[in-house]
Every structure is written in structure tokens, then in C-alpha cells.
């Protein structure tokens, strides 16, 4: 089963009365367990594509299937619930809720899903250990470095066992070494736990780690390697 | 025929018939207005004159008691002076009311003091009767302060009478909204008066009766004042003696005389 599939995805924005096409008929297929990077210059439509895949936005035309569910036919509420249940997000920055500790941030999604506090706590600590942050569970985001924050975000993204984790330029604000480390963590999780990752980037170092690279330019997919 | 020559005869007829009609109506009104006022003036003069001296008996009836006072009253037209002395009963004997123009005093022999009646008390009962201080002071003139109109001709107590409506003039110092006065057609003898408040409510009724001759004059000798809203109350004035235009010493009408007279 495909984890993710898009068919003829198009997105057109209205900007100051002008129409701007961000995506032109994107057809994409990602299988379970893949580690995909979407690469392209800024303005190529990477973020737009990820937003559409994640159900954060609706396409102008075309369809998106997550776990064979047509999310483009869903209501706002249904998409929100779907995100909660099946999709993990890692954004470029400001991923975490500032007033919650690392552990609590990771617990957040689990508690939203209805998990008990004790269990969520246990799971959160375990996941934080997986990303190498044991001992730092009670720290607030402002007590963590950039790289550590991103790792907490990753932990949160995977803690509930999502179908797919979407990361939009996760290393953009990190120095190269930290960025590398982060991707390594993600790669490790992909290898060990088989979690599907799709992330966008323009960092060449990151690209190297990916098993599959999809290039984009001007809203179109170019080639796939 | 032109339009105008057709209209002319009709116009003439209207003029010949209509105008006299208009005039007569107007004339009738004019004569009636004069009549009404004159009627009231005559009535006013009947009991007065340039001076007068009278003896009266006043009986006041109340649900809880009844009292009878006898009194003498002197009146002088010039200077609008009145001097009333209570003769009986004993508790009130010697009380004098003096009025000069629009001011009023009482002399109380019991405490040997003269008391001035302030304007705020003008509508209070005089000596506990249903006549007010103002009725005596007569701050208003029934002739000058009202406009008069004869409303109808009626028969009251066997007499042919005019029913006259008196409406106070705008600035008149009068507390009534309207007065009806019935006067005998032949000689303007007062027969009945009804006093209405400004909101139209009937407040009191003054009835005159027993018209007979006293010292050569025909006067009503029985005056009955009934306050309409107060159950069981009335005041009756009986004229025992009345002399009009008698010789009266002006010095009676002084504050000094109030005390001396006792």
C-alpha cells in the first residue's frame, strides 16, 4: 500500500490580484518506509507541496491520498483529526510550545489523542532517548540548543507512530554539523523503526543522506533518483 | 349671458338675506355679552352698597359636631374694609376679623393677641366654616376678574333665572376654573352658585333662599354652602339684620379698634 499518493496536484495562489501557480500537476508516490527528500530552489513549491500532503492546505485541483484516504475530500475537522492520528510534522523552526518541557511537548500529541498521562510520559521519555536527549526531558525549549529543539520536534513527530513524518527544511536554521546529526537521527529512525520520512531541503549534505531524491522546479517534479 | 351677469342676482339675494342675518346674530351676541356682565354686576351690588352693617347667625354642621355662631359685620366699600365680630358662643365671643384691602387679621380675646392671617392661609376655612378666608377677603371681583356669558334660562326654586357662566380672566387671582351663577331674571337676585376647580371637578355649591324684605330691601336671608367632596359638612348663614348705606365710623376698621372693642 502506498503511504502517500498525489494525482495531478495543482495549487494556484491569488496574490495582489495576480494568480500565481505554485504547483503544476504534481504526481507523487511514496511507499511505506521510504526516506525521501524533495529538493529545489526556494520558490520551487516544496513547502506548498508538503503543506498539501500534510492536509494543512487544500489544492486548487488534484487529489492527495494518505494511507489510501482521500484527504482532499475531507472537511477541515476531518483533516485536523487525520493530522493528529497519522501525520507527524517537523517545521523549520519554532516547533515547540514554549511553556511546556521537552517531555511535555512530546506528550502533547499523545494526550490529544486520549492517551493516559502515565503512559504518555513513559512513551515520551523513551522517544526522547531514541533521539539522544535522555536527561534533558524536563528542559524548556529556551533551555535547549537549536539542534536539540529540532530533535524534540522529531521525537514528538514519531512518538505516536504516525504513518508519515513531514519535515519542511528541518536543518535550515542549524549549522552543518548539527544539521547532519539531525538527519542522521532521522535516518536511524527510518532504518530501525521503518518510519516513512518526507522532507524538503536545499542542503546538499542532507541530500546525500536520502535514499530517494525528488527534484522540483517551478512547481513541477523534474526527475527522480 | 355672461358668467357675471348670471351670478349677479344670486349674489344680490345672498347679500340681502345673509347680511342682515349676520348682523342680527352679532348684535344679539353683543347685547348678550353686555347683559351677562350687567346681570352679575347688579347681583353683586344687591347686598352691598357703599357701606353695610349686618347681624348673622352661622351654623356649621360636621359629621361629628354642630356649632352655631352669631356675629356682626360691618363693611365699607372705600378701602375695601370689613370688620366682623363674633358674639357667641362663649369660647369664640369677642373674636374679631378685620380686613383692609387684601390683608386680614384676627383678634383673639382669649390670648389678647392680634394674629395676621398670612396669604398662605387664604384658602383655609374661616372660623371653621365652609367659607374660606378668601371669601371674606374677596381678593377677586366677581365682575372685573371674570368673563360672563348667559348660557340658558332655567327655573330655580320657582324663580325664572339666567344661568350665567363665569370664566376667570387669565391673570385673575382666582382659584376656580369656572363658576355657574343662577340669578333671578327680574332683579338679579342670587339664587345659586356652583364652583368648579380647574380640572372641572365641582367643589362647592352655594344656595340662596328665603328671599324677603329686610329694612326695605329684598335679600336672600338664607345662604347654604355645601362642600361637595366632604360628606356631612355644610355651613348656613342666616341674615338676621342688614342695613345698607348706613352711617359707619371709619375708625372701626383699625387694628387699634380690634383691641379696644373688648
Amino acid at each position, binding site marked *: 500500500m502506498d503511504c502517500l499518493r498525489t494525482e495531478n496536484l495543482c495549487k494556484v495562489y491569488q496574490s495582489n490580484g495576480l494568480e500565481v501557480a505554485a504547483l503544476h500537476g504534481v504526481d507523487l508516490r511514496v511507499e511505506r518506509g521510504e526516506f525521501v527528500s524533495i529538493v529545489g530552489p526556494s520558490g520551487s513549491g516544496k513547502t506548498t507541496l508538503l*503543506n498539501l500532503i*500534510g492536509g*494543512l*492546505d487544500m489544492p486548487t485541483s488534484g487529489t492527495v491520498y494518505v494511507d489510501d484516504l482521500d484527504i482532499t475530500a475531507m472537511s477541515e*475537522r476531518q483533516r*485536523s*483529526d*487525520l*493530522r*493528529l*492520528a497519522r501525520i507527524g*510534522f517537523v*517545521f523549520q523552526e*519554532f*516547533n*515547540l*510550545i*514554549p*511553556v*511546556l518541557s521537552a517531555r*511535555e511537548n512530546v506528550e*502533547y*500529541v499523545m*494526550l*490529544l489523542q486520549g492517551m493516559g*498521562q502515565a503512559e504518555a510520559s513513559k512513551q515520551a521519555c523513551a522517544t526522547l532517548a531514541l533521539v539522544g536527549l535522555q536527561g534533558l526531558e524536563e528542559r524548556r525549549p529556551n533551555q535547549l540548543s537549536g539542534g536539540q529543539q529540532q530533535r524534540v520536534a522529531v521525537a*514528538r513527530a514519531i512518538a505516536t507512530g504516525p504513518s508519515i513524518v513531514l519535515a519542511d527544511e528541518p536543518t535550515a536554521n542549524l549549522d552543518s554539523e548539527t544539521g547532519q546529526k539531525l538527519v542522521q537521527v532521522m535516518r536511524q529512525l527510518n532504518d530501525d523503526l521503518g518510519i516513512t520520512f518526507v522532507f524538503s531541503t536545499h542542503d546538499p549534505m542532507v541530500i546525500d543522506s536520502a535514499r530517494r531524491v525528488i527534484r522540483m522546479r517551478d512547481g513541477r517534479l523534474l526527475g527522480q533518483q | 349671458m355672461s358668467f357675471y351677469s348670471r351670478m349677479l342676482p344670486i349674489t344680490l339675494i345672498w347679500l340681502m338675506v345673509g347680511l342682515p342675518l349676520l348682523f342680527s346674530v352679532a348684535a344679539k351676541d353683543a347685547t348678550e355679552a353686555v347683559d351677562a356682565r350687567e346681570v352679575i354686576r347688579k347681583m353683586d351690588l344687591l347686598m352691598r352698597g357703599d357701606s353695610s352693617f349686618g347681624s348673622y347667625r352661622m351654623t*356649621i354642621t*360636621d359629621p*361629628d*359636631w*354642630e*356649632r352655631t355662631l352669631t356675629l356682626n359685620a360691618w363693611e365699607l366699600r372705600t378701602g375695601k374694609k370689613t370688620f366682623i365680630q363674633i358674639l357667641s*358662643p362663649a*369660647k*369664640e365671643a369677642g*373674636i374679631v376679623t378685620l380686613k383692609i384691602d387684601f390683608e386680614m387679621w*384676627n383678634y*383673639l380675646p*382669649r*390670648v389678647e*393677641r*392680634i*394674629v*395676621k*392671617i*398670612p396669604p*398662605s*392661609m387664604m384658602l*383655609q*376655612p374661616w*372660623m*371653621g366654616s365652609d367659607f374660606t378666608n378668601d371669601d371674606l377677603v374677596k381678593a377677586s371681583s366677581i365682575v372685573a376678574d371674570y368673563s360672563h356669558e348667559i348660557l340658558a334660562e332655567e327655573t330655580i326654586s320657582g324663580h325664572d333665572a339666567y344661568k350665567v357662566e363665569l370664566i376667570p380672566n387669565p391673570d385673575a387671582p382666582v382659584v376656580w376654573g369656572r363658576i355657574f351663577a343662577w340669578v333671578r331674571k327680574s332683579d338679579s337676585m342670587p339664587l345659586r352658585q356652583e364652583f368648579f376647580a380647574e380640572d372641572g371637578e365641582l367643589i362647592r355649591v352655594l344656595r340662596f333662599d328665603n328671599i324677603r324684605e329686610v329694612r326695605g330691601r329684598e335679600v336672600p336671608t338664607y345662604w347654604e354652602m355645601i362642600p361637595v367632596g366632604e360628606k356631612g359638612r355644610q355651613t348656613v348663614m342666616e341674615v338676621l339684620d342688614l342695613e345698607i348705606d348706613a352711617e359707619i365710623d371709619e375708625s372701626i376698621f383699625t387694628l387699634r379698634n380690634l383691641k379696644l372693642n373688648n
Partner: protein
Amino acid sequence: MQLFSRIAWRNVMRNRRRTLITLAAISSGLAAIILFFGLSNGFHDQWITNSVRVYTGHIVIFAEEYRDERNLNRKIENSDDLIIWLDGMPGVETATPRIHINGLVSTARNSAMALVRGINPARETRIAGLRERIVEGSYLDSDNARQILIGHKMADRLNAALGEKIVLMVQAADGSIGAELFRLQGIFRLGAVDLDGSLAIIGLKDAQELAALGGGVTEAVLIMDSPADVSAAAAALINEFDRAGYEVLTWDQLMPQAKEMIALSNVFTYILLVIILAVVSLGILNTMLMSIMERTREFGIMRALGTRPAQIVRLVLLEAVYLGVIGTALGMTAGILLVTLLAWEGIDLSRWSGAMDLVSSLKPIIYPALRPASVGIASLAAFATTLIAAIYPALRAARLRPVDAIRSL
């Protein structure tokens, strides 16, 4: 729920200064309202107490039909027995007989219409401190000393001097003219313009003789220990006197304008409450909007993660609840403290007592009064205001689209 309570609480504590300012706004607004209610209630209490004592007393007993006809013959006979019986009633501070007649007060030079009041001197002064209200001369020696007390305004008008002989002329019960001489014993100042200008006080027995009342009086007046006892006592008396031919009336029936004035005054107080809370709510609204704007990204992330809009609304409202509870608690405490402190000494208005004469206070000192109902209503209103002010910001936060929210930096 516990999750959001936690987040809400930490959000409130996040920006200490902003929170403190908001709390200050809520609590000072509430404290001010409580204080004003306290002053207002205290003033009303004082006014009722004093007005009532000076004019009518708490409860007045008349003979049936006296009030309809104002007829002196509708009098209470055997008032002595009645007064002694009333003394014994629980909750009664003082009972005293009175006679009221309209009459004329005259000096050698002037006269004035007056309301003549015949009193039992010993009992009467317990009602409104009449003895202490004598500003010139002295109090009545007895109830048949042929002495008279008049108000300072009447004394001015009559140009009367102490010791002068004054004539009192009335229409007696039997229709005759009652006139007696009284010696001007004292001049009083009750602080009520109408009474000081038209009330003349003489002894009860003197009044009975003057007006040929025999042994009767026109009314019996009761002062209760506390205004709160009045309605119960009146009801008991009405019951008791059902067949006895007496009419029992309370002060608010005799002076309906008093109650209406108080009701009107309360209306103004409530208007003030609304205004203050409206201002406070604008402040809160502003602060919360700022806070929401600053957290746009955060809300976006939460929504992206799958948080429902309703949950966001709940979160913001919870923050408002925390602010509201703390602010209200602080405000209540401050308000109650203020009122209690002021009630200790009272507020002395004697500097302005010229105007106070109009509302007839015995002592121009107001003791602010705490009433649970007032404090309760004000606090509830303050709390509600906080919540209401947060509604718009909450809705704004919930309506943010995740995409836009995340994009905004």
C-alpha cells in the same frame, strides 16, 4: 482538560508584567465598585435611618380613617395603654404618642402656617435626638408647660426671639377655634428644610387642650432597633390590631419617595458599575489580543498537530478564567478591606452639610456598609467581564489557519 489547564496557567505566568497589569486593572476596578457600593449602601442606610427618625418613625399607628379624612375626631384614645404595650414588643427601641394639627403660628409682627406637633418630651427625644438638636434656648420642660419649639427657618421668618409669647391658633376637634399663648422655649435645627421651616413642637397635653382632643392622640410612633425588623413588626401589629380600629403603616408607605430615591440611586450605581467594567474589559481585550498575536505561530503549530479550534478557544478562555479568578479575589479583598477601614471612622461630610440638609441627616457622617449581595454581584460581574473580554481573542486564535499561522514570522 488537565493538559490545557496546565498550558493556560503557564501562559498566564509567562509574561509576569503583563499579567500583573491585567490583574491590577481587574482588581482595582472591582475594588472601586465595591467601595462605591459600600458608600452608596451606607449612605442609604444613614439616610433612611435619619430621615425616617426625623419625619415619620419606622412604624406609625393611626386610628382608622384618620388618614383619609385628616379628621381630629378619628383619634386614638387611651394612648397610654397602647404605648406601654408597644414598649413591650420585641425589637422596639422607642414608642411615643404624637398629635399633629395644622395651625397658625403668630408673633406680634408675623404669622406662618405650621404643622403643630404635640409630643411626649422624654420619649420623643429618643427618636431623633431632638434635645440635642436645639441650637438656641432649651428643650420642653414638660408636656404641659405651654412652651413651644420652632425650627430655625421659621424663627428667621417670624423674627422670633427666645422667651417671646407666640400665639398658636388651630381649628379644634369640636370645630371651635383653639388659640393659646406659648412661650418660645427653644429653636431647633433638624437638617430638613421643610421641617425647620414649618414644624412647631409643643407638649402633648398642651396640644390636647388646644385642639380639644380630650385624652386622645392622632398617632403612635415606633422606632425599631434595626430597619430590618420593620416589616415583620408591622405585619405583627396589623394582625394584632385587625379588629381594634387602628391603621398600621410603615415608613416606606408614608414616604414612598424615600424608597424611590434609593432605587434611583441604585440605578446610578449600577450604571457606574457597567461603565467601570466596560473600561476594564477593553483593557483586558487589548492585552489578550496582543498576547494572541504574539503566539500566532504557536497556535498554528498546535493546529497543525491536530488541535481542534474549540480546544484553542478553551485554552484562551482558561487563561481568562485564571486571570478572572485571581483578579476578582484580589479585588474583593481590597474592596472589602477598604470599606471596612472606612467604616471604622466613617466619612465626615459636615463640611458639605449645607446640602445635606436637603436629605435630612442627623449626623453628616456616612458609614460605608458591606452587603454580601452587593459584593457578590460586583465580583461576579467582574469575573464575567474578564471572560467576555476574552471571547473575541479566543475566537481569533481559533480561526487562524495553520498554514498562515506557521508562515507568519
